[in-house]
């Protein structure tokens, strides 16, 4: 079985290699400081004890007041999987450093997160809208997308996830 590292185990690995890189931990994930992200992941990839060589999954999540970029990174030799996160605050221009220099496979997934969330990955060699076309209005996977100018079609407003924040258990859509 692949061992899924808890947040504190992943934080211990990161902290041992790059002191001061961990912002906080949760039960499942370790939050890294954005400015030290690339350095930390490079150290984790090259260190034989951590051996986190394979970036499996990279995606963004919108939490209304901030965005999170989630990295699932695994080791083949140790057979473990760690979850790291980075927070980007502000809806106008959220920015996260790109990990493409460390993991080449991140480039398409970062393009996708940029395309659908509008998170800018600084240092990415070629950040473009990979699924939608240039000039598409807004960022479709943001929670407020349908309420944005240009994103709202008459009648679709009912479906907007906007309601979710004010009244948390959402009613089931038939």
């Amino acid at each position, binding site marked *: *079985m*692949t061992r899924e590292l808890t947040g504190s185990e992943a934080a211990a690995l990161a902290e041992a290699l790059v002191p001061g890189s961990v912002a906080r931990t949760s*039960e*499942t*994930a370790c939050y890294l400081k954005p400015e030290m992200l690339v350095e930390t992941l490079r150290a984790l990839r090259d260190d034989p004890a951590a051996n986190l*060589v*394979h*970036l*499996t*999954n990279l*995606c963004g*999540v*919108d939490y209304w007041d901030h965005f999170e970029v*989630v990295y*699932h990174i695994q080791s*083949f030799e140790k*057979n473990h*999987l760690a*979850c790291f996160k980075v927070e980007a605050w502000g809806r106008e221009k959220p920015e996260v450093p790109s990990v493409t220099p460390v*993991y*080449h*496979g*991140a*480039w*398409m*997934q970062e393009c*996708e997160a940029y395309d*659908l969330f509008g998170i800018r990955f600084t240092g990415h060699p070629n950040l473009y809208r*990979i*699924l*939608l*076309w240039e000039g598409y209005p807004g960022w*479709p*996977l943001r929670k407020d*997308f349908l309420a944005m100018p240009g994103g709202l079609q008459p009648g679709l407003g009912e*479906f907007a*996830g906007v309601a*979710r924040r004010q009244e*948390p*258990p*959402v009613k*089931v*859509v038939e």
Partner: protein
Amino acid sequence: MSGIIKSEPFVINIGPQHPSTHGVFRIKATVDGEKVIDAEMVMGYLHRSMEKLAEERTYTQNIPFTDRTDYLSSMSNNLGYCLAVEKLAGIEVPPRGNAIRVIMAELQRLASHCMAVGAFANDTGAWQTPVMWAFREREKILDIFEVTSGARLTCNYMRIGGVAFDLRPEFEPMVRRVLREFPPFIDEMEGLLSGNEIFIARTRGVGVLSPEMAINSSLSGPMLRGSGIAWDIRKADPYCGYEQYDFDIPIGYNGDSYDRFIVRLEEMRQSLKIIQQALDGLPGGPFRTEVPLALRPPKGEAYARIESPRGELGYYLVSDESPAPYRFHIRPPSFINLSALKEMTVGGTVADAIVVLGSIDIVVGEIDR
């Protein structure tokens, strides 16, 4: 006149409508003569924004969406999603449900690899015969799906907590027939292609990926194993009781298109082995745990993955205790396997680019989602 023919780079579009792209996908190849010097991918023609749609529907209502991502392996997609929800909500699946899931997932792998191998032969110039042979065998598997779930392509058969229906009495004889008739087909295919001089000339040394590059580019599935890395999630992180079954992980040595083809052929043999064992030891009892339709998993997040025919298929779900997922993310193997396409095609000819794309075995529904 100096007598020197001047040449300049020229851009050709492979696709979006082209038989070798297996869907609507475009490679903008910059060529110098016959040589590809730059390749850019253009995708998104089939983008349906499933991740956004899924945020407005309940967990159970989302299962049919997963059929429509990788439409050549709908069973595997259902399975990956249901595993993620079960992990999030802490639901146990009864042993019979797990065994049925394994049989279905492996039958789906056979059907999907039939398509991959047949279409790959088509791309290399073995026009129509291999693909028709492959379709002939795939048909028998689709018939099994039709008998069991009522649908051939978008099966929608897995449910959270088990499977939708129990097996029908016709099921076992039909699977036994596949088990009997499949090995001769694989041998036939191998005899037809893997020793064929033209096939070898078209695929050996084409689209070579070093193991380091394969890992660094986040590849998975036959792409990774073709480059010589024995990584299979069914072995490394068993789900649905795969640890009970005895099978091997085939790997390639050169990381070229030929190796990826051979790995797929051999994987079909291993799948047959798994189906045989699962069918012989099919447990009785319930096939599903009862789960409320408007399931509200506890607050949290889960990432579950399976070995789909194309590689690691992962689902990342975030729950906010509402009946709909707060975030629904698919880790699509076809999409991520393309991240090394440029490295594999640049330096080869245009005809090689077609072979490389065929060897990746993309499904555009999954790339664009």
